[in-house]
């Protein structure tokens, strides 16, 4: 059994990283070249050499039979997202015990899954992939693409929160002298106070029965026609936005 890093729950500042066991960062691609649309989401290990990116892009284009212009597009998009992650690198991240509500609302092929749960971002042992797998197993979700999509969605939210805590530290350092107190009171800006969840009275950790449905997952399976209409709506929306941008 792995030993748990005891310092995580203290108010310690750590160099920036993903608040999960494996420091994988979420990458989301949504490219539109010459009428071809390519959407994808996956995780990337930032410690991998950058040459991997181009190899990956070439491979993807080959496998999916996309036009060759996509190679540069894909690698650029991945590189820029990696760069964004690395721009935080080496900076202090202020982490104390911080429980945040995460929401998942995804459509993967024909499966629509909505869920909401609490996540401790100071728990560096957490594993979104494992969580997503369990969720799909428990709900008997057949589509194998759902679990990775959930994991990516969780990672995106975690990344955002981690990035916010970096800027919180930066602000605090630039600010007035009493930065310690500032940290303690405002460190978790979007984390709701933990004690709000844990009732001050005795049995705080068990939710009221009427709240269960809000914190549990729901899964809908759409028919092919519904998926078709949704896709069409999305693309039309995107085209309209593009047209508007062009006209001005």
């Amino acid at each position: 059994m792995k030993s748990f890093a005891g310092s995580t729950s203290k108010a310690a500042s750590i160099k920036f990283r993903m608040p999960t066991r494996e420091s994988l960062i979420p990458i989301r691609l949504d490219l539109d070249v010459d009428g071809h649309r390519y959407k994808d989401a996956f995780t990337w290990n930032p410690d991998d050499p950058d040459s991997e990116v181009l190899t990956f892009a070439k491979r993807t284009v080959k496998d999916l039979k996309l036009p060759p212009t996509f190679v540069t597009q894909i690698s650029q998009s991945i590189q820029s997202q990696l760069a964004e992650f690395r721009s935080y690198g080496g900076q202090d991240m202020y982490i104390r015990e911080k429980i945040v509500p995460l929401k998942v609302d995804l459509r993967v092929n024909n499966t629509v899954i909505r869920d909401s749960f609490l996540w401790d971002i100071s728990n560096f042992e957490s594993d979104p992939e494992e969580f997503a797998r369990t969720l799909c197993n428990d709900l008997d979700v057949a589509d194998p693409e759902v679990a990775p999509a959930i994991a990516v969605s969780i990672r995106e939210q975690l990344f955002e929160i981690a990035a916010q805590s970096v800027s919180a530290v930066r602000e605090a350092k630039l600010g007035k002298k009493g930065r310690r107190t500032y940290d303690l009171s405002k460190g978790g800006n979007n984390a709701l106070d933990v004690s709000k969840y844990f009732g001050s009275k005795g049995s705080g950790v068990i939710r009221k029965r009427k709240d269960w449905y809000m914190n549990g997952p729901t899964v809908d399976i759409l028919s092919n026609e519904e998926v078709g209409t949704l896709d069409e709506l999305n693309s039309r929306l995107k085209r309209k936005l593009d047209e508007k941008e062009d006209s001005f």
Partner: protein
Amino acid sequence: MSEGGEMAPNGGAEPSRELYTVPFSSSWFQWGEIHETEKRALPEFFEGVSTTKNPRVYKEYRDFIINKYREDTSKRLTFTEVRKALIGDVSLLQKLFSFLEKWGLINFSASVKPSQRQNQTVETKVLVEEGTPPGLRVILAPTQVVQQGKALGEKKLIGGENGLKLPPLTSYSDIYGEWDPRKGSLCGLCGEQCLDEHYKKMEDGLKICLKCLKSNNSDKEETTENKPAPAPVSVPSLAWTDSETLLLLEGVLKHGDDWDLIAQHVRTRNKNECIARLIQLPFGEHIVGLTNGKSVPRLPLAQSKPVEVELSKEPIENNGDVSELGRPSEEPPSKKSRVASYVSATESLIKQVALLSAVSGPHVTAAAADAAITELCNESFHAREAFDKSKSEVERKFTLSNQEPPSNLDAEGDQQKIVPEETETPSPSDESEKEFITTSFQIRAAVATAIGATAARAKLLADHEEREMELLMATIIEAQMRKIQYKMKHFSELEAMMDQEYDLLQQQKKSLVREWVDLLRQAFHTGVPRWKDNQCSPKAIDN
């Protein structure tokens, strides 16, 4: 893997204890405390540095998960189900959940996923060697029987939802009947196949193998739980002597309903036996009623006809064991279904039949009653005889109140239940046998009535609900449509406004350009200074 039973108190101060099966290796588990193993596996809770992770929270999480699983031990508890109800970091909760699952504190006797089912035979061997483990029953049941048992179990569940407690005798008798010829003698308690001469035949027709007989005689709590009212006649060594009964009565008068003290007073008997004995005494019910403030549910009929009581004991045993035999060995039935007593079930059945037939209306019940009786008569010769014999009596009951007639809307389901069972009910004399058969058919008729009435009622309710749902659905759709229409109207208004704005802008632009051109022209006319030439860009002139 070795397995053992653990007695866990059911939380309250109630003397009743429930039996759950956990792996032997997890016997460190105690409700009251937190064991070293737990502290080692989940140190997060015991570091004392965090506000949200402390031993108290840990215990609440743990107790909730285990209790949730024990609500229905045959069902597999999933993590997703648990985290709905618990506040806290899901990663940590998942760690805790898999810890409990690993140690078998949850999902131990739940049905295993298909992939793991192959191990079944291996486990069977191990268990047989151990003798009869208190919590687990292992049988070499043919698959067909397993399926039937499952189907019947489901039916029973449906009945239970309507608050109806069916005595399981008819539903299980056919399984038992099928067994006997094929498998030879099976022990009524542990369900194992008994070798020749290695079983004892009880007076109520139940065969018990020697192993079980021994354990039956020793005061095992397990056994007494399965048999809430052990019959003194069937197990001679359990017969009460007069002096013991006297001591019991003294104890009851002295200690009221504190059964621990009473059992101490009697000394030679344990608590459950004392309760059972007192209830069996002719005035026992009276005393219990006095001391408890509420009477013990018991069929008055059973008091007056001792023969029937003895015979009706058999279904109790059958029920408990057949229901277990019918399932795969990893899922012993949950406690409640095992304890259900035939006697109280019959009583409540009759009550329920009255209630249900009142609900579904006299005509439906009467029509269904005819169907049920015809079906019963077709089913077996004995039934016809019995009904012919008791026709006058039954008719009298019909006319007295429209509440007795059995109804049967579900003829197929009924057929399954009405497989004859009397083939294996030996009885002391011919008369009492006939009497019993008559009674048993009446009970079956009552069961059929109950099912029929329930079905009729359920159908009505379902129809009503469906209509309601359709209506609501229509309302919802209508409201949504209206919403969308409003939105569209709004947007088109917006668009019109935008267009107007755009036109206005265009006009302004035009007039601006015209003014500019006018200005330039005036400038030309009035004579242009040399330096102004540069500013007159071709673009402006084009316009």
